[in-house]
């Protein structure tokens, strides 16, 4: 265990001071992990407590959400992780989840006897780092520590990547821990991390390894100040820097604000997204800027239209997105750097998730999220995505750093079964839809920064029957707007506020961090929706071909697009099913997540696409993103709906009005697409 030094001492440490960086390296981790369990069912509570104690965790149980919050507030750094039931009489579990996420920023695991897709999706969109189905088995609990680690890891990365200089030279000292507002936990983690880093000497960690960023506790007052500042600036214009200035809180760093902003946005999005459900979820987040993506980032939260409007958004992409969605208005407001159409899956209703923060986006690494592409990502895809997401993991951090709203749109794919429905729907829209069950990499920063691809979870015998893949797959959040088209259940997108959630059941990895941003990469996820039902296995990614095409980058995809994100609409065709697929198959959306250079060049893609698309076979997601650097894994899904594509393209053209050249659709002509 990497963090061997940390947790072991946790149990003994009464305060952060107890943590000595060097001397408490303990191999006991994760023993001593401080868990708070909340469940109104006394039987379950007792069983859970016993199980957790057997895992050598420190357990505190309570049967009311309010009591839990009280405990958490009084003891800010007293817990490492929270496990909560969904259905509770006094407060909805999701509400609790949000509060904890906003205020304390702890990883939260949801549980329920309810394994319905929508509920699980809700968990994902609300930022739960995992979702356990009752009855919970001890194996599932054994590995919950990974969420804690992951979160810390991400925070570290975030700090690093954001280039935070503030913390730069802080030498975390054990004795200083107490001084920090960070919890002992935090200190522990940082220390362990630091140590680890020092050992590794790794890459970016080098200077940040000594960084010890005290954890900022977002108290109610602080949060109110924050909200005040945001409102003053206007939610769209609220940039961490300005917020920081307005708040004028000593000791608060831009990064703190940025990550909090991200969560806040996610929260808002969720709130507002509920209504827009049908339409939203098409957030395609393109990796930031820098060159490559760009466009997508601006998509954050912005309606596609908005995005489309801006020249940046490639007309095509917009068109695709909108067209598919039936929106023909291209909004320009979004500075979408490169909105590659590809990047934007032509989801029915692409909706940019995060409306604000375009500017953030540009600076941050937007993740390309396939919007609304109903893709059935089978587990494989998810896994693939996950892989990429993992590599992209950095993105998450980065995004956070930049305060990018979760560029990662959670694309939660609904179960494959739903695909059938989607299929039907898509026919209407011509928008390539990724069938719901696509597990797209989640580039959601919003999701508690701890979003990490969870490899481990899957393996943990959750017993929930979650397909591991799910967790691994990074989820791309695609706001799917096509509510009309896609049955709600199919896409969780519709249902999840602000999040295009095509979730595959189970907790979607919010933790999937797509390190999309490695260097401004464009994450291109090639998401093929798997309209087929995979059925038994939600995660059967076979159909879904998420391909991360690392290699495809070409920033110059479109004139204006950096494009890293190439969204190919893949239609999962035939493979399974069907016929019905045709209409529904959503164009294969290819998201290529490429770091830096890996940008899918749409233009070039004409051919490239062909090659990509041609693949009719369902790609089992075996492609895993090898590592951060290579994030691109391609998922090919059967591609094949020519008609869809053409419809898509057409729509784009109409919708966008044109800047064909921008989209370079020419290159992406239909005929290139093998049907």
């Amino acid at each position: 265990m990497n963090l061997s030094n940390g947790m072991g001492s946790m149990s003994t440490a009464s305060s952060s001071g107890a943590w000595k960086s060097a001397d408490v390296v303990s191999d006991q981790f994760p023993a001593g992990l401080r868990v708070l369990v909340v469940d109104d069912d006394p039987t379950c509570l007792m069983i859970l407590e016993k199980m957790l104690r057997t895992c050598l965790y420190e357990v505190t149980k309570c049967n009311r959400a309010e009591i839990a919050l009280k405990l958490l507030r009084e003891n800010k750094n007293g817990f490492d992780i929270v496990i909560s039931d969904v259905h509770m009489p006094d407060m909805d579990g999701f509400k609790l989840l949000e509060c904890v996420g906003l205020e304390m920023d702890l990883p939260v695991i949801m549980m329920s006897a309810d394994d319905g897709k929508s509920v699980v999706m809700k968990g994902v969109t609300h930022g739960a780092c995992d979702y356990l189905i009752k009855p919970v088995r001890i194996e599932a609990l054994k590995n919950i520590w990974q969420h804690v680690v992951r979160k810390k890891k991400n925070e570290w990365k975030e700090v690093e990547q954001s280039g935070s200089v503030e913390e730069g030279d802080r030498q975390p000292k054990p004795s200083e821990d107490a001084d920090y507002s960070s919890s002992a936990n935090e200190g522990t983690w940082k220390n362990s991390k630091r140590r680890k880093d020092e050992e590794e000497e790794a890459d970016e960690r080098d200077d940040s390894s000594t960084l010890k960023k005290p954890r900022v506790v977002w108290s109610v007052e602080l949060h109110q100040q924050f909200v005040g500042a945001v409102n003053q600036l206007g939610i769209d214009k609220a940039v961490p820097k300005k917020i920081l200035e307005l708040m004028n809180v000593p000791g608060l760093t831009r990064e703190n604000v940025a990550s909090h902003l991200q969560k806040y946005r996610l929260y808002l999005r969720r709130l507002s997204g509920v209504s827009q459900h049908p339409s939203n979820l098409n957030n395609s987040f393109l990796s930031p800027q820098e060159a490559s993506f760009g466009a997508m980032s601006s998509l954050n939260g912005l309606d596609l239209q908005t995005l489309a409007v801006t020249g940046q958004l490639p007309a095509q992409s917009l068109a695709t997105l909108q067209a598919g969605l039936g929106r023909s208005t291209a909004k320009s407001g979004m500075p979408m750097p490169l909105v590659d159409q590809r990047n934007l899956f032509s989801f029915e209703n692409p909706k940019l998730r995060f409306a604000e923060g375009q500017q953030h986006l540009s600076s941050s690494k937007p993740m390309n999220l396939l919007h609304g592409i109903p893709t059935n990502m089978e587990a494989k895809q998810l896994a693939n995505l996950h892989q990429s997401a993992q590599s992209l993991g950095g993105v998450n951090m980065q995004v956070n750093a930049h305060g990018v709203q979760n560029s990662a749109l959670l694309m939660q794919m609904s179960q494959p079964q739903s695909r059938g429905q989607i299929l039907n729907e898509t026919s209407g829209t011509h928008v390539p839809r990724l069938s719901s069950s696509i597990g797209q990499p989640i580039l959601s920063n919003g999701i508690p920064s701890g979003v990490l691809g969870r490899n481990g979870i899957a393996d943990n015998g959750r017993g929930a029957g979650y397909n591991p893949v799910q967790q691994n797959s990074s989820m791309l959040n695609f706001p799917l707007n096509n509510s009309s088209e896609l049955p709600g259940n199919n896409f969780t997108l519709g249902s999840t506020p602000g999040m295009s959630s095509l979730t595959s059941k189970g907790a979607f990895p919010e933790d999937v961090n797509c390190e999309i941003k490695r260097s401004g990469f464009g994450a291109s996820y090639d998401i093929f929706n798997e309209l087929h039902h995979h059925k038994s296995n939600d995660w059967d990614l076979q159909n879904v071909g998420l391909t991360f095409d690392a290699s495809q980058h070409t920033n110059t995809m479109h004139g204006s697009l950096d494009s890293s994100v190439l969204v190919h609409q893949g239609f999962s065709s035939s493979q399974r099913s069907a016929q019905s697929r045709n209409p529904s198959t959503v164009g294969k959306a290819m998201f290529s997540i490429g770091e830096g250079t890996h940008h899918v060049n749409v233009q070039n893609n004409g051919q490239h696409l062909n090659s990509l698309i041609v693949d009719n076979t369902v790609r089992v997601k075996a492609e895993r993103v090898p590592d951060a650097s290579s994030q691109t894994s391609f998922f090919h899904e059967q591609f094949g709906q020519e008609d869809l594509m053409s419809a898509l393209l057409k729509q784009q053209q109409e919708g966008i009005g044109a800047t064909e050249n921008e989209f370079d659709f020419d290159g992406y002509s239909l005929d290139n697409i093998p049907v």
Partner: protein
Amino acid sequence: MEVGQMQRQWVDYTKSLFLEGFLDGQFLQLQQLQDESNPDFVVEVVSLFFEDSEKLLNDLTRALEQPSVDFKRVDAHVHQFKGSSSSIGAQRVKNACIAFRNFCEEQNTEGCIRCVQQVKQEYYLVKNKLETLFAMEQQIVAAGGSIPILELSF
């Protein structure tokens, strides 16, 4: 009856409960959690379950007796019951709850009433079985023996 015999009886009885579907793998998990530090864990949990269930079943019955049935409430109760019964491994009860929920969704009062009966029946059955099992365990312990470790694999 000597201890060895009692123990064998216990093993057979336990196995039968699994084979007949009264209990499932989750119950085994509970047994595995029981150790020296917590020698009565299973009994404690199950007792808690019984207590809680009585209340729940009462609430459920009452809710269904209302002139205008609040299905949401009924469903919430059933959901809860499903959760707790599955947590201790009471498989048949859990299954009855699952069926019950379907009727709730359909807002079928008649169906729900029938289901409540079903659920209650299963509950009392398993309660009875478990109480018998625990009595056997007590006898074994009283006779100086120890409860055998089950090696059932599912």
